[in-house]
């Protein structure tokens, strides 16, 4: 019996790998076709009928996995996200993204898909998700907000510097690389009662020299709790 189990398991490993290699070759063909300059300006899903053909053979779970993958070229995740929108519909994606119980990775993938839809009203949903207790869900929402990249998304990300299950260092990473200027959103945090929040605000404001000149930096040092820890008082001035 053990011989049978070993043989079956070994065969499964090899066959699944060969299938993987076959799919990878297909994908490389698509990538090659997409380098053609004549189709470069077309929307991702229209660049190659092959993408649509391949995605139509995949289950929702598989397409979601493609959308969520960070190890993957942006054009493909975008194409998959648009495919999700076309075939599943925005309401279905919203439902998956707001699911509270079970199917955690489907929720994570749906949140990442929402990050590709800039025109849709996805902010309240992402705002709720970034405050989720599960760090994987909250981090996915943070990634999606970074990808949305508008002012409303920045407001949500800045507000989570006050506390969320995503570590502040990760939020700060996204805010530091945010595509639009957000200095004015950070200035009010300099008066926050929590020293931690003021630290992050001052540190992030280092990029915005115009705000650094006008921001009430001294208020950080004057705050009672910070006076006990003078090393951190003027961290913003040096960053």
């Amino acid at each position, binding site marked *: *019996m*053990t*011989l049978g*189990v*070993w043989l079956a*398991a*070994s065969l*499964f*490993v*090899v066959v*699944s*790998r*060969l299938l*993987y*290699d076959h*799919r*990878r070759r*297909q*994908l490389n063909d698509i990538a090659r076709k997409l380098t053609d300059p004549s189709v470069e300006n077309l929307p991702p899903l229209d660049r190659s009928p092959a993408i649509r053909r391949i995605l139509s053979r995949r289950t929702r779970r598989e397409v979601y*996995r*493609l959308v*969520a*993958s*960070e*190890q*993957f*070229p942006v054009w*493909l995740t975008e194409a998959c996200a648009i495919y999700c929108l076309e075939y599943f519909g925005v309401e279905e994606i919203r439902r998956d993204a707001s699911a509270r119980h079970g199917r955690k*990775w489907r929720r*994570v*993938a749906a949140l*990442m898909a929402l990050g590709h839809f800039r025109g849709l009203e996805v902010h309240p949903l992402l705002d709720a998700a970034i405050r989720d207790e599960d*760090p*994987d869900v909250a*981090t*996915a929402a943070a*990634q999606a907000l*970074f990808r949305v990249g508008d002012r409303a998304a920045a407001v949500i990300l800045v507000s989570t510097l006050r506390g969320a299950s995503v*570590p502040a*260092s*990760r939020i*700060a*990473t*996204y805010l*530091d*690389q945010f595509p639009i200027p957000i200095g004015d959103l950070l200035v009010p945090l300099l008066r926050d009662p929590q020293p931690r929040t003021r630290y992050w605000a001052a*540190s992030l404001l280092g990029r915005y020299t115009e705000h650094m000149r006008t921001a009430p930096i001294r208020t950080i040092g004057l705050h009672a709790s910070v006076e006990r820890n003078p090393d951190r008082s003027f961290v913003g001035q040096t960053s």
Partner: protein
Amino acid sequence: MIEPTPALAMFLRVALITTFAYAGTLALYVVSMLAVAIPESRFRRRQDDVEDYEAVRGSRYTIPVSVIVAAFNEEGMIVPAIGSLLGQAYPEMELIVVDDGSTDGTLAAIDAAYDLEPGEAFSRENIATKPVRTVYRSRTDPRLTVLVKANGGKADSLNCGVNFARYRYLCTVDADTIFASDALLKAMTLVGKDPERIVAASSLFGISLTPEFADADAREGPRLNNHLLADFQHLDLMRSFVVYRTAWTGLSCMLCVSGAFGLWRRDVILEAGGFSPAFSCEDIEMTFRIHERFRREGRPYRIISLPNMVAQTEGPRSARSLISQRARWQRVTLETIWHYRSMLGRARYGSVGLVGVPYYLFFECLAPVLQLLSFVALLVAVLVGALAWPTYLAFLGAVTFGTAIPTTIAVGLHDAGFRDYRVRDLVRMLFLGPLDLPIYRPILMYAGLRGTWEFLQKERRWNKFERNTRSSSAKSLPPRRTRQQLLRQPSANPASQTNAAVD
């Protein structure tokens, strides 16, 4: 053929019952571990898949790490090891190499490669160590500090590095190991998700006979050694990390943060009093100590093992060297289990006391003795003519393929996550599985018995195995990528980029 006596018959009966009971318990344990490891491995794969490493790689807010290398007579490997560590695609780190009174050209080799100059460095002296003779700084890379100290063993060297470390996280590594450029990035990204609870982490590493040439970032992925003993060791580690340690992580009883790559929170190391030189090896004892302390005090914490292949370390080429190394491993396991025997079976220590420690006691410490018992019983049964050969051969066949199943699943889980081995290497690994019992296990059994004997003799030597000989072409190493190049590139392993898409 000898005449069976009642005493021999009784011995055979006892040995048979013991062997079957042991094999049955082990099989049950392995099946349970597989049942935990498969979903846990799937979870880690998903987590790795959606992780935004690019953002972390380019961030100026990542948690800085102090990497500590303890080196004793490592002139052949130290420069490539430092090169791989300074080449980490991680935004902020320092590298502290502690030369533990080497008598070869270790320091000269580092000096030749990194242009050292005597300097000063701030030390906290939190843990007592042998005196530091000289502190060197590199003129070519300011992140590199070399401490030359009196010989005191690996634990003492690591403690010395801890005293000089500036950052909150410590990464203790071996000097004969070459790291993939994303080793720190991947481990720290996960640790950074839950820094309050994750106090230590380890990750899978492979065995290579010449790791300085086994480029862990190679486009074609890692390679096997085409050397039977080295490949068995490689599979052994893969099975251990991908199945057992992953399962223990899922059960919150990961009991060995490996010395080759261990991430620690510095405050936890200091609170525990530093690495202990009283044991033959420092890594497993420190992991046990942290578990014991945190469980006893009821504090939340996690020690995790990751499935990513982060490094290639030098493995013994000959059976003699392997026995020497594994005898030390057996000795330190016995020392640690004996020291922390109070945790065994105690509900107060949760899964550590009820699952982890019993595993180490029954399937690591006692395994060589029970294996020897079954060998002796087999010999006696043959001599008295009591062996039913067809039944025995059927049983042996079942056990041979049964012990290969965890290897097959480990290979399958690794491949599903990373798709980095060539198909032919994959097939080779799968076929090596059933050969493990007849070829590799007897060597380990002998090493285990020797380690047990050394433990009883209170032996404390390190038993460093003789370094593998290199060919003359080994002199010309390919230049490693600089940190700037690595931070610019999109991913360390392009072959892994498309995994998620086609899985």
